[in-house]
């Protein structure tokens, strides 16, 4: 049901763009107004949410580690798995952000005949995730060739690296293949594994379908129903240099692609996709495991009025003496 709802939502967005961009005078809306609006919502939404997050204190020192803490000199510590200083934290965060270290440790639990409980490593989710995220990053960077004029050389380098196999004309990008396979896997995983389908919400399926349709329309435009890229670049550079002008004859498919991207940008700050900034603000990852070297004071601590034993004894000294109780001070 959640999956169907998300699928219908994405189809409605595609249909809206198809119909809207077919109407001649609406291309300014789809080509200029929506992109600017989406970028504004994206930036403002992320800034708003990150500042809101930063307003919450981190009351406890809670790094979740998978290694030996630094302690006595003869006990070997693991500086990356259980970092005790900032450099270790940076290394650990880099491993997490660039290589999804914690997902790599994913395990599965199975009941075999016997009955026997078996634990094993499960790398498919890691593989699908890393293939998707890296493809996505490279695809976004590759798009800079249509956004920037003159084109920075690193973009051209990335482009030729991605088209390394020189299959067909226009050349096949490795990331185009990878992102479609990875997204298909991530969608099928949610749909076919019963446990995962049980707790999957519409907000889990929707980004997947949205990203798949963005990649899909991109692939269609490059390999099957080609569009005039010079027009696309004129539009993009016009937008980025605040001289928006909508060239004629770019094709409806392009506007569908653009509208889907606008939807993604505008949806981003309100969705689970906020794990992008969120990973940097995870207290279980970005704190050093140095609780034995440094005293961490709860920022939430309220000044509590306490009644110490000395004060107690002062108050009841006479009564305690009469009752024959031992006293610290006579």
């Amino acid at each position: 049901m959640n999956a169907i709802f998300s699928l219908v939502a994405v189809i409605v967005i595609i249909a809206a763009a198809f119909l809207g961009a077919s109407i001649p005078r609406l291309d300014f809306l789809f080509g200029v107004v929506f992109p600017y609006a989406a970028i504004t919502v994206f930036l403002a939404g992320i800034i708003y949410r990150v500042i809101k997050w930063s307003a919450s204190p981190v009351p406890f020192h809670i790094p979740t580690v998978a290694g030996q803490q630094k302690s006595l000199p003869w006990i070997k510590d693991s500086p990356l798995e259980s970092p005790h200083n900032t450099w270790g934290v940076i290394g650990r965060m880099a491993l997490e952000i660039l290589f999804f270290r914690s997902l790599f440790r994913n395990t599965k639990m199975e009941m075999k005949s016997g009955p026997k409980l078996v634990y094993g490593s499960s790398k498919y989710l890691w593989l699908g995730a890393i293939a998707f995220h890296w493809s996505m990053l490279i695809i976004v960077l590759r798009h800079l060739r249509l956004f920037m004029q003159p084109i920075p050389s690193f973009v051209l380098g990335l482009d030729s690296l991605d088209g390394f196999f020189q299959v067909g004309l226009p050349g096949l990008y490795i990331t185009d293949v990878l992102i479609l396979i990875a997204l298909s896997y991530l969608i099928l995983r949610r749909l076919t594994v019963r446990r995962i389908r049980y707790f999957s919400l519409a907000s889990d399926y929707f980004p997947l379908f949205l990203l798949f349709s963005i990649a899909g329309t991109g692939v269609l435009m490059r390999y099957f129903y080609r569009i005039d890229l010079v027009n696309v670049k004129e539009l993009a550079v016009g937008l980025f240099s605040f001289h928006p002008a909508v060239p004629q004859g770019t094709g409806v498919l392009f506007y569908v692609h653009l509208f889907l991207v606008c939807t993604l940008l505008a949806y981003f700050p309100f969705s689970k996709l906020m794990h992008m900034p969120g990973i940097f603000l995870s207290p279980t990852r970005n704190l050093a495991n140095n609780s034995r070297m440094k005293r961490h004071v709860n920022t939430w601590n309220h000044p509590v009025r306490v009644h110490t034993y000395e004060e107690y004894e002062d108050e009841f000294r006479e009564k305690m003496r009469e009752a024959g109780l031992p006293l610290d001070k006579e």
Partner: protein
Amino acid sequence: MYDCGKIIAGLVIFVGLFTSPFWYDLSSSTALQTPNPVLPTKADQNECVASLEFMRRDHMALLNEWRTEVVRDGITYYRSANGREFEMRYTKTCLGCHPDPSQFCDQCHNYIGVSLYCWDCHNKPALQRQGPQLAEILSPKSEILNKHQMQNPKQLKLMFSHRR
């Protein structure tokens, strides 16, 4: 706000990176320059092998198709939509009307960052190597171009040298 410095620094980096195309294009003097391919002016060169829209979008696929048909199927002539026949040869048919690639092909290719790898293996058209002033000498009717198109002995030798 806790860790104010780090949060602000992170947000500034993020916003800076995300909006970098804006800064880049706003500070670039050539951002709004659009490609300006030089079109043939001669009276007999007013018709391409396909429509303008098709050529703009799909010329690379057409060239790829021609390559397959010429090299693998031995078909050397292409009948256009309005019945005209063209020889399927880049150097003769394409360069015949657009003799200087730097004035035509490269205009859009450079603009959208398409780098061709044809000349990694193939002999670069003489025109491009020696400059546009040779365009007249090597016009499609001239024999020099046709002769050049034939593999010169050196190329032939190279072609067969690895087969031993």
